[in-house]
Every structure is written in C-alpha cells, then in structure tokens.
C-alpha cells in the first residue's frame, strides 16, 4: 500500500537508466541462454534432456524480456550486439557466447532477429527473406529476421574510424618517441601527452578495434622502439578488452604496456641499434632494460602518482611464468596479469617485426604456434590462448595463399571464435597471379551452396616475395 498522494512518476532519466540496466542485464542473460541452446543443439538431438532444458531456459528468458519490452530485437551492428538498442557489454563471463552469436549472425548474413509478441514483419527479398520464409513455413510466426544494416553512413563511419585510427597511431608513435628521447636526454617527459595517447588508443580499441590492430602491421613507419611500444600497447589493450577489463583498467594496462620498454632509453644506442650479434657484456646491458625501466619510471617527473603498475610490467615482462627469465627474482612474486598480457603482446610483435638483429621477421602464425606449444618460452598459456582468440591463428596482416591459388592478406579475425582458422581476408592476387587493387574481402568461414568452404588457407607466405606491402591495405 502506498501512502497518501499520487504515485511518484519516474523521471525520464530514471526510466532510461532503469530500462537500460534491465536490458543490459536481461539481454546478457538472453545471449547466454541462446548460446547454450546453440551449443546443446550442436552436440545432442533435440529430444535430449539438456537441449530441452536449454530451450526451456531460452523460452523463459525470452518471455521475461517480452513481458517487459513487448518486442525483442537482437541486432548486430559493427562489432557489437544490441538488444532493443542497448549495447551489450562484454565481460569475462559472457564474451565466448557473445562472439559465437556474433559469428553465427554474420555467417548467416543476419543483421537482426526480432521476436514479436504481436506480429511478424515483412522480410526483404534476399537470403534473409528465404530464412524468414522458412520460419513462416515452419509455423514460426513470432520471430522475424532482417539483413544487416549497411548504409552509406556505415561506410563513411568505417572510413572515419580508419582515419581516426591512423591519427591515433601516428600521434601515439610521436608521443612515445618524444618521451623516450626526452628521457634519453635527461629532459622532463610530458606525461600528459602519454596519457592522452593511451586514452585515445583505449577509445579507438573500444570503438573499432580492427582498424587500430591493422595498423600494427605497419613496418618501417618509424624507429622500431617507438612503433613496437605502440603496437604492444594496442595488442595489450585489445586483449584486455577481450578479457572484459573496464575502460579505466584498459587505461592502466595501456600505460604500462606503452612504457614496458622504457628502460631501453638508458641502454646505449650503439648497443640498442647494433647490427649482428651482441657480446656477452652487451647482452647483459640489454637484459638490464626491465629493471632500468623501473629506475627510469621512478625518475619520470610529472607523474602525479608513482606509476607502480607500469614499473611492475616493465620489470616483469621478460619473466617467465616460473619466474625464470630476467631479471632474477629473489623475493616472492606473483606475475601480474598485465605483465603476462604485455609479455605475450611484446613477444608477438617483436618476433613478427623486422629489427636490426632480426632482418627477416617470423610469420605471425609460426610465432603464435611457438608461443602456444613451447612451454619453455614461459608465456602464460591461457593468456596466449586468449591472444589467439583475439587475433586468430592467422593474425591481421598475415599474407596467405589460398587453395584457390589466390594470394590474400588477413583483414580481420573471424568474430566467431570457432573459426579462428578462417579469418576474413582481402584477396590481393587472382589465381592467375594478377594483382587486385585494392582487392576484395572474403570471409573464409562462409560456405557455398553445397556447404563447402570455397576458400581455405593452405600456406602462410612472405608478402615481399609477391611484391605486397601489407600496410598498404590497412592505411
């Protein structure tokens, strides 16, 4: 019973917040039960008790949503899933279900699924229409499907994002260069700029991860030390996002990642840039860079708060999970998750880059394989696995030969993690060897009418051999 007077009306803001909160929560729940149903149906026949339970759960969750919202729309937009206009947030509990459903919708070319409590809408005359027709034929009248919305605005938006990514990347490299050089020359580094750069990287990764990750394929854009730091920052933030870190946690991780090699600013340039093998003494100096990083960060004036997390990552990023590696550790220590992330990002970018003492970079897939399979490398296997989930077995920028004899460049990882080996590629040379400029995108996870994969990767190759400049396709 309420007291006297009329019932209080919820403010617009309250209504928005409440609705948003409800959809975010119920939407995630819906996604998880939908995913569970998909998985169960894949493994067992429909009569199976587990399948039935999953479907019952799905029906209950759907009903719960429909009771409140009257209509339930699951929409794919860019890299995100929306439930009735509310974007679902990724976190550690749901990201697998998220990417699976994202992948399924993409694969089917479905942009939205609507469950209506009153009527089905007309579908468009295309593949989606067929699916819609089949649903109708099957007696399903309260679920409709719609194609993805790809408007001119979307294309413009993608271009805009790409340009923004390029600006962010270039600015980040410039800031890193400025800071490292300032430290090297004993000048005060501008921490504000670094913060801004990392904040921009986090924003970019949150808005459009692929465009920034693609730029890590840029080689010879600037000195290795600077581009490497930025690449490690990008990979780390992207991986952190995959692991469900919050925006502010991504910032912490990004700052630490950008500064992971800051100790190299105290390594003499003749050692840092020496071509050929290093002497024992030079190698010892190089191996000092993690702890030199700690000392450097202590001396970095302008920091409001001492950058402890950055120090820890700088110190630990060459330590293996069993605490071997360098520097040697005497006191008890648990490797920070951020160090493990940066360590994987660092190892991957370093091995796939051309450096003074590594003129031929190793192919990305080989690097991942080594990281995954060789425990002596000392990477955290779960972080490596998450990293492979992120960039795919064939990371963005990998040059591949397809079984069609076409040459292609990996454009983006398949959002469906069950297809890590079937990324989206840009075909840049025809089966006859003729170059395609700028080429066309092909989703290797897409099947033909017979259910076969028309294109499959058979070989990773050196792009230079084919006169291909990878970064041309990301810039």
């Amino acid at each position, binding site marked *: 019973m309420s007291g006297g007077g009329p019932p209080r009306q919820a*403010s617009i*803001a309250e209504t928005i917040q409440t609705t948003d909160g409800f959809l975010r929560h119920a939407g995630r729940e819906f996604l998880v039960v939908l995913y569970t149903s998909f998985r169960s149906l894949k493994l067992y026949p429909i009569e199976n008790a587990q399948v039935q339970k999953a479907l019952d759960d799905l029906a209950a969750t759907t009903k719960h949503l429909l009771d409140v919202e009257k209509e339930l729309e699951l929409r794919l937009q860019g890299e995100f899933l929306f439930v009735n206009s509310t974007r679902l947030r990724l976190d550690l509990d749901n990201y*697998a279900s998220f990417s699976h459903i994202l992948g399924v919708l993409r694969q089917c070319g479905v942009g939205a699924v609507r469950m209506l409590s009153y009527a089905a809408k007309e579908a468009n005359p295309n593949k989606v229409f067929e699916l819609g027709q089949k649903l109708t034929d099957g007696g399903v009248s309260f679920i409709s499907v719609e194609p993805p919305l790809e408007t001119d605005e979307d294309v413009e938006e993608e271009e805009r994002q790409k340009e923004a990514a390029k600006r962010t990347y270039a600015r980040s490299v410039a800031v890193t260069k400025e800071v490292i050089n300032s430290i090297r020359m004993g000048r005060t580094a501008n921490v*504000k700029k670094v913060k801004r750069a990392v904040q921009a990287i986090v*924003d970019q990764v949150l808005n459009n991860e692929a465009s920034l990750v693609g730029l890590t394929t840029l080689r010879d854009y600037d000195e290795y030390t600077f581009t490497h730091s930025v690449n490690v920052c990008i990979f780390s933030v992207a991986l952190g996002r995959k692991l469900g870190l919050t925006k502010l946690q991504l910032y912490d991780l990004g700052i630490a990642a950008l500064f992971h090699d800051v100790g190299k600013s105290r390594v003499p340039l003749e050692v840092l840039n020496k071509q050929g093998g290093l002497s024992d003494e030079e190698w010892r100096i190089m191996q000092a860079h993690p702890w030199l990083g700690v000392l450097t960060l202590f001396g970095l004036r302008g920091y409001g708060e001492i950058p402890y997390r950055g120090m820890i990552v700088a110190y630990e990023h060459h330590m293996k999970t069993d605490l071997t590696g360098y520097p040697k550790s005497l006191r008890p220590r648990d490797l920070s998750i951020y160090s493990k992330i940066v360590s994987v990002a660092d190892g991957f970018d370093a091995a796939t880059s051309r450096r003074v003492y590594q003129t031929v970079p190793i192919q990305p897939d080989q690097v991942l394989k080594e990281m995954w399979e060789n425990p002596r490398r000392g990477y955290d296997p779960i972080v490596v696995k998450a990293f492979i*989930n992120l960039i795919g077995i064939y990371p963005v920028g990998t040059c591949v030969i397809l079984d069609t004899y076409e040459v292609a460049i990996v454009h983006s990882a398949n959002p469906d993690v*069950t297809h890590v080996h079937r990324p989206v590629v840009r075909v840049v040379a025809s089966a006859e060897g003729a*170059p395609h400029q700028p080429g066309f995108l092909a989703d290797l996870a897409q099947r033909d009418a017979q259910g076969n994969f028309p294109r499959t990767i058979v070989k990773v190759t050196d792009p230079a051999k084919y006169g291909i400049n990878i970064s041309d396709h990301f810039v």
Partner: protein
Amino acid sequence: MLSKGLRATQLYLPNNPVYQRAVDNIRAALRQIWQATDDLVFDVAETEVRWEDAVVYSQDNRSESVAWTLYKDGVRSLAFKPGIEEVEIVRFLGVLHQAKSLQADAPDDLLTLLWAQDFQFISYTFRELASENAVPIEAGATIPTTPPTQVRRYVEEEAPPKRAGLVSIDDFDTTLYFLEDKEVDYLKRDVEREYAQDLRRNVLAMLFDLLELQTYGTVRAELISILENFIPYLLGAADFRSVAFILRETRVILQRARELIPEHRQTLETMPTRLSQREALSQLIQSLDEATVHPTEEELSELFQELRAEALVTLIGWLPRLNNERVRDLVHGAAARLAQANAGEVLKALASEDSAAQLEMVKLAGRLKLPGAPDGMEPLLGSNDRTLKLAVVEALTAIASPSAMRLLEKAIEDADRDVRIAAVRFVASRGYRNAAPRVESIVTGSKLRNADLTEKMTFFEAFGSLVGARGIPVLEKMLVAKGLLGKKEDPETRACAAMALGKVRTPEARAVLERAAQDKEPLVRNAVSRALREVGG
C-alpha cells in the same frame, strides 16, 4: 547556473549549504530543461558558450571563465543528456574545478580528467592541441612489383602439396578457439588479484631484489636514493607497513648483499636510525595522533617494531600529549619494548629536559620494574616537581632493587611531606631494615616536631615495623613515662608511639600498651586500643 555551481565548488565543501543550494539549483534547472528537450549541446568558444547559435554564457575574464577552462584544453562542444543531474553534474563541476587549478606542467589537463571520469551522460568533442610532430601515415614504401606469371609460379611452388610448417587448426589444441570456464575463472582471479595487490610492496620487493643482486656502485647508489626518498612519501601516504618493510629488508640487505661498499652500508645502516630520530618520529606520531583515519594496529606495530633505541626518548615525550587512545597504546607498547632492551636510553629519557617525558619514563620504568632505572632517578628526587618525585618513589618501590631501596631511604628525608610519607611507608612495607637507623633518628629526634599527625604516625609505624623489639624502651618512654617535671609527651606523640608498639607485635609491646589502655587522653586511648587489636591476643 553552471558558473555559480563552479564557484560554489571552488569555495565551499560539499556539506556547505551554499554549495548544496548551488547544486540543487543546477539540478532543478536541468530537470526543467529535460521537459523541453532530450539533450543540451553547447558550442564552446574562447570567452563564450553557445546553444543553438545563441550566446548563453559569456565571460571575458579568463580566470573566471568556464568557457575558457573548457576551451584552453581543446574542448569545442559539450553535450548533456538527461540523467546528468543525478550524479555526473557534481563530478563534472569537480573536474572543472580541478582543471582550473592545474599547473602547466601537471600530469593532467581537462581532457585527461574528463576521460578518466567515463561520463555516461556527458559527451564532448575536442581539438587535439598538442603538436607531437606526428608523421602522417601514408602507404608504405614501394616494393618492386612481381609480374603475374611469377606470382602464379611462386604460388604453385608454395601451395600444393602441403608443406611442413603450415599451421592448421589441427596443429593447435582443438579447444584453442574457446576459453574453458576454469580458464575464464583463472583470468578473472588474476585481474582481481591485480587490483587487490599491494603495489607499493611489490615495487619495493623489486628494488630490494635489485639492491641485493646489482653490485654496480652507481646502480646501488640510485636504488638507495630512491628508497631514502620513498620513506617520507610512504609516511605521507600513511603506508606504515611499507616503511616497516623497507626497514626490515634493509637489515636483510646488510646481511646478504655482496660487495656492499662502506658508504652504501653506512647509508643503509642509518636508514632505520633516521626514522627513530626526534624530528622524523615526532612528525610521524603527530600525524598519527591528528589523523582522521587511523591505520590498523597491525600496520603500525610493524613499523614501531623497527624503531631503534634512540626513539625511546621521543616516544616517551609524546606519550602525555597524545589524544588518540589507540595511538597512545601503540606508542606505549613501542616505548616499553625499547625501554626493556635499552637501559642506556632509559637513563637518557630520565635525564630529558622535558619533565613530562621524565614523568612518563619514571612511570614506565616502575611498571616494567626496570632494574637499571634507579640510577637515573636519583637526580629527579632533587627536583621541585612533587608529582615527579612521588612517581619516582612509587617506581622505586615497584622496582625494589637494592639501589631502588637505597634511594627510597634517602627520600625519607625529602623536603616534601608527601614524598617523605610515601617513601617511609614503602620502606616499611618492604621491611627494609637498612633504613631503620634513619627512621629511628627522625622518630627520636626533632624532625617530626612540626609534622602533622599523619606524617608522625607513618614514621612511628615504620619505626615499629623496622626496629621491632629493640624500639620498645623508646616507645614506652614516649607513651607512658613522665618527664622531669612529671609531664608526659604530647597526646599526638603518645598516640603515635602506641601505634608503633602495635607494629612491634611482641608480648612486651602488648604489656606496655595495656598499661596505657586507660589513658585519660581519648586520642591516646583510641590509638592504644587499635594497636592492641593489631598486636593481637
């Protein structure tokens, strides 16, 4: 309205009614606006803010201008959405206030601060003002093109048959595409651990590992300097546990580090000492006593455990001035620990120029029964401070060592009545017979002539206790004998003599008392009666 809110944020604390009124006004205004529109988008210029091309705010004075605060760091438009009035508007005003007061070389500007707030109901556009000499990203260097025929030939060479080294899904674990629940849990725990860990302790452990392992003098010098500068910072941040860790690990380094040059060894050795020095320790205790949020007992005791002997004087000096009970207990505990282990420092504290410190030390020495303390207490008996002297007597009684008793004996003849009474009472209660001659001379001499009854009584009772049967003739004479003129002693002296006989507790003493049982003087009669009860049947 916003400007007023900002001024209120600058001038008043959040619990101030003026501030609260300003915020309430903004909230009310925004709620009214949401009746008419779904959002509020402002264009920001140097001196003004515009809404739909109309100037809604203008201020030429930059130091007071909200527009300038936004504009100077690059903000060019600002959008408020419904919901901002609940929480975010207050945080937004806080950010503006913070940004206004930032120095040019500060690690933040308005943009970094706004970003960190992660506002949901406020968005903004900005122009990147800092020039980083960024090199535009252009298409890469031209690589010699490969003719199609050659591309085809290469592909044929490379592609079929499948060569070793080709990575396929089969080469990887079949579950690679998917993180198991337990793996997700593992990562989740790791992230939680990341944010639950003691970052400072982690970094300190690194520094000590380096200090131990890096034998280069310059590196060690830098590390030691970092540690030295770190201590005040940690104290300022009330991270006492980390300071204790530094002091503890410094001891470890002194034991374990190889090739430590004398200069570094000396600096490390003096590190814990420096914190125990008066100025530093006083700062610490004062800040603790004044702090609104107190560290845990465990944290503080870890630090106090590391204090050196020289801290005792300062700790003792602070004890009477502390207001916080918990801090007082901790300081007391630390002082007790140091006092028990460092007799020399106890003497120093007793010789302190601060009489309050002296008093605390005396009390502590008594409670701890420190056997060496009486040496430092002797001069205190010569002071004019009655409270101090009484405390000394009490402490000496508690210590009760031969040297303590010797001092008590001296105190019997102190200039202060209370001190004399206390001393003689304790001497008597301890049965310290060495003091008997002195007590006897006082009782039989003229020193008690002007003393009040209490003092007289105390001395006489002490006399009875210490001298025993040997004193009966003197006491008998005082109690019952008449003088040359047939005059007896005054009633007070006779009553005292009776009480003294009561302490002798022998049949002879009883016999003397019985003879005086019917004395005409009520005072004497009462005393005799009490004494007889004490002597017993």
